[in-house]
């Protein structure tokens, strides 16, 4: 009895340590974004000045809008293209399908630093150069494999007889996809879309390579600002990003769980 209780207590302590390890730096940063002292000095003095001055920082705000814009467009393009690719891989047998499927995964493992360098050279080579368009193309390329993996996983649970049943009832290819297949894979599509958004919105390395001073994203702008000199405005904007990113991840987890049911 006593041993069980000690083990239970140890288990709880372990979880507590783990969460502290994960969240303590973030919590401190979030707290400091509300602290009046720019040098992390205590005692803590409540202020929202940093958020107010963040509001005045046009460069940071412009970069934030760029990030949101690119993330939204990336999500849309990669979710549509990725879902279509997953459906094609699910439905059709064609030459080189296995190779194609195998080639979809390595980009997830290749360091972004290398992908970024390669993209920079490539985009210069074909005349796109750097800028928001280059960043957008890069993000779509990064996000696509994630969408395909997530949507394909969902499709594995789809019974092919459902499409056959729909066809036997006179439904054409579009009606089959739209009314039978899509409703089934929708949790996967949404989860894939959230992944794509996160990959784009949190992206630093590839964006850093492809941005120019006027055309940049929030993570790159934060990095540039820190190099110029740290201000708690960065804490403030980081706190906002963390809240948004965590909300997205929690949503993803919810949809994944939802996808596992039935």
């Amino acid at each position, binding site marked *: 009895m006593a041993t069980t209780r000690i083990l239970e207590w140890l288990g709880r302590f372990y979880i507590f340590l783990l969460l502290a390890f994960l969240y303590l730096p973030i919590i401190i940063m979030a707290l400091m974004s509300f602290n009046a002292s720019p040098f992390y000095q205590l005692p803590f003095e409540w202020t929202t000045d940093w958020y107010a001055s963040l509001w005045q920082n046009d460069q940071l705000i412009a970069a934030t809008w760029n990030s949101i814009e690119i993330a939204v467009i990336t999500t849309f393009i990669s979710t549509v293209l990725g879902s279509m690719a997953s459906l094609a891989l699910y439905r059709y047998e064609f030459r080189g399908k296995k190779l194609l499927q195998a080639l979809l995964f390595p980009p997830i493992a290749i360091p972004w630093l290398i992908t970024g360098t390669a993209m920079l050279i490539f985009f210069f080579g074909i005349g796109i150069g750097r800028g928001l368009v280059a960043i957008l193309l890069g993000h779509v390329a990064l996000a696509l494999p994630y969408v395909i993996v997530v949507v394909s996983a969902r499709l594995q649970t789809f019974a092919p007889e459902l499409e056959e*049943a729909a066809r*036997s*009832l*006179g439904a*054409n290819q579009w009606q089959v996809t739209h009314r039978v297949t899509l409703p089934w894979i929708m949790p996967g599509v949404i989860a894939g879309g959230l992944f794509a958004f996160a990959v784009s919105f949190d992206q630093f390395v590839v964006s850093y390579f492809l941005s120019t001073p006027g055309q940049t994203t929030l993570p790159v702008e934060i990095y540039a600002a820190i190099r110029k000199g740290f201000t708690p405005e960065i804490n403030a904007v980081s706190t906002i990003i963390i809240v948004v990113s965590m909300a997205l991840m929690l949503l993803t987890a919810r949809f994944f769980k939802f996808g596992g049911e039935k």
Partner: protein
Amino acid sequence: MAGVQVANVSRSFGAHKALDDVSIDFADGGFYALLGPSGSGKTTLLRQIAGFDFPDAGRIAIGGESVERVPVEKRRIGMVFQNYALFPNMSAADNVAFGLSVRGEPKATIAAEVQRALDLVQLGKLGTRRPHQLSGGQRQRVALARAIVTKPRVLLLDEPLGALDKALRVDMQIELKRIQREIGITTIFVTHDQEEALTMSDRIGILRDGRLVQEGPPEEIYDRPQSEFAATFLGDANIFRGDATGAGIRLPDGTAIAAGAGAKLAAGAKASCAVRPERIQISTIAKGHDQVDTNMLKGQVSKRIFAGNNSTYFVDRDGQTLKVIVQNTGAERLAEGQEVVLLWSPESTVLIAA
């Protein structure tokens, strides 16, 4: 409503001949069973008729119209799948409505037709339920309603009762037959269950290794099998092999067996005889028999299985084990090890070309 003609249809998958020159004429309004072991080609044949797959050679016609290159969505067929394949994201009523809805029928028409179809399968009140809220038998009924609500020319069923337990299966057999009679639709039913094929269908086609072995009414196939395979696959049969004598066969040990039914074979040809276990009378040697026109063999009971309304005796005779089924009439039961004589008439003996 329409008949279906399958003429010389062949289909190969790589080196495997799934269907080899199969021809069957499915009459308008009939209830057909395609019976065979797994891998016999029965499901492949059904998929050719449905239009999920196209034959390499041969012709398929529905209502006299060639359809062998028409895709499934344009064939106007109704199909019930082995696992029902109900759309999980739709209610029972929406499942049934699907076929009418993709055709663009007006909403009021759809609602009325769906209700009629649900009433026909006795699910009138369960239209709002999702598939996972329905029992196996109810899902089966929804699948059936969905398949017939579009007024297809032919109804195709792929082992539709396979997933149900025995009692429910018997209920559904009766129900399916009632609905089929009520709407008079040509129905083709794939099964590996011989009892199901016998009790439900007007005609049975037996398939083996992609070929049609025999086709006809259940009584005819059961009483006059044309091959050892047909004899043993549809029901039980005792098979004797020997040489044709003109009036039957002669076994290797010289015993003559008279056959009054089946093929006409020239004397000397290799042949077999099939006898159903319930056609054989069994009795103790002590009683003695000397009927002239009756086939008689002596043997020894090696095993008896009592099944309530009948008993099955396994009788050893010259290296062969014969099966005899005796109704429980209250008569004396024979013990294992007992010497017996088996008697059966030539009319119960079907001659089969080897």
